[in-house]
């Protein structure tokens, strides 16, 4: 579904990604794990069009998207949950969710997707008219996820959904990610919390200072000594 081939990404003269290649197969949860500053978010931003690769190609369903603008990429079916719970703070929960469906015109579909989001996140329904900025951290993460789902994506990109959340909430968020995947949405998950990410993913890549150093089925990696040592403190 998504194919990233040998991309190089630079911040000015600093190379952040070196020949990164990865593949996301339809229906899977694929995760990219690594330490701080390894290039996880950079990879995600490059896929969603916020950054441009200097070399290499990115194709989505067979179409090259490495030069497509971010809004067109959203329109093609790739939706992103940005890092750090980026909600629209002085818009209501409802307005936030509606912004997720910004590119859509099918009123009926939007209403049914809104109901689906509320089924999945009942807490958002309780707070429909509340300003998003007044929600708790976990609720904001749910809102960001709900908003991304409102675009009815085929591929959902998630940037560190566990960031800054209490362990109990992290578990809840990951359960929801699994559930979203079970309804047919392919997920590409960037995470620092390797254990959590590997426990729900099908396939995983490990990134270290801009390079993929390890990849394989998530179940294999979770038991790999190398990953344990490097990312889970032995």
């Amino acid at each position, binding site marked *: 579904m998504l194919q990233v081939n040998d991309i190089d990404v630079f911040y000015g003269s600093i190379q952040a990604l070196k020949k990164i290649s990865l593949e996301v197969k339809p229906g899977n949860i694929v995760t990219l794990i690594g330490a701080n500053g390894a290039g996880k978010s950079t990879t995600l931003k490059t896929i*969603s069009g*916020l950054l441009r690769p200097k070399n290499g190609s990115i194709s989505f369903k067979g179409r090259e998207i490495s030069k497509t*603008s*971010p*809004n067109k990429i*959203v*329109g093609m079916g790739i*939706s*992103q*949950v*940005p890092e750090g719970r*980026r*909600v*629209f*703070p*002085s*818009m209501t929960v409802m*307005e936030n969710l*509606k*912004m*997720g469906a*910004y*590119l859509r015109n099918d009123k009926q579909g939007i209403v049914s997707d809104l109901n689906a989001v509320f089924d999945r996140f009942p807490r958002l329904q309780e707070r429909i*008219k509340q300003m998003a900025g007044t929600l708790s951290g976990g609720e904001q993460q749910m809102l*960001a996820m709900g*908003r*991304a789902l409102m*675009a009815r994506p085929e591929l959902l990109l998630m940037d560190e959904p566990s960031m800054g959340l209490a362990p109990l909430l992290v578990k809840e968020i990951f359960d929801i990610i699994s559930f979203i995947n079970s309804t047919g949405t392919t997920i590409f998950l960037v995470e620092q919390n390797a254990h959590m990410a590997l426990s729900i993913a099908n396939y995983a890549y490990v990134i270290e200072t801009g390079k993929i150093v390890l990849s394989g089925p998530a179940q294999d990696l979770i038991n790999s000594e190398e990953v344990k040592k490097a990312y889970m403190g032995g």
Partner: protein
Amino acid sequence: MDAFITQQIDAYYLRIIIIIGINIILALGLNLTTGVTGQLSMGHAGFMSLGAYTAAILSLHTTLPFVVVLIAGAMAAALFGIIIGIPSLRLEGDYLAIVTIGFAEIVRVFFLNFELGGKAVGLAGIPQQTTFSIVFLIMMVVIFLNITLLNSHTGKALYSIRENEIAAQACGVNTTQLKILCFAMGAFLGGLGGGLYASYMYYISPGEFGFMKSIEILNMVVLGGMGSIPGTILGVIILTIAPEFLRVVADYRLLFYGAMLVILMIFRPNGLMGDIRWYDIKKRLPKKEVKKCQS
């Protein structure tokens, strides 16, 4: 209609009312750029002067109808709005503010040396075609179009850029296009207000469109509440009338004006109407009823 109004209303009050109308057009323009879309522009007077000079020169040297002259002025400003919108794609906050201040200064210095604009002396004898009814009509159209825009799909997208640009992009909002558009629209209204101003004042000079003018308009938007149309209108009314009321304190006028701004911002940090939303008002009403029952 204008003859009737000049008979009924004292010239001094009418003048203030017309200036309020012009300022509403100017401030609603800046509200689109800075209030709604969150692109801090401190050079609104630059757009205003472009509109003012274009309209003034055209009405002095041609016989074009006033409406055409006004629109030409507004279009000239909008063109520069697009040009100044391009750096906004890469800059934000303070850095963008500096670019816009620089732009307004360039425009001011240009007119200071512009032969056709009368250089430092300015342009005098501009035919006075701005009347109460024209200002009122244009103001109503501008307010109506602003309300329509902000309630539309595009309007929500503009707000979302202010709220969080990255999240807006993640929602599929074409932020590049909309940021340039917000500058163009803001500049258009700035130019329109400038044209009306020039024609109302008979006389314009580069000095009137300095940094303080930009700040004055920015104050109106911030005081009223960023992004709120009724707030901006209220801000304009207060800040246009205040200096008139403060005539009693004569020399200390600016001191009181400044103090008033400080006090208002302490008590209403989001502006007078910046954080008031319709459903907040609606929500409050039933709550009161419940309390009554309990007691």
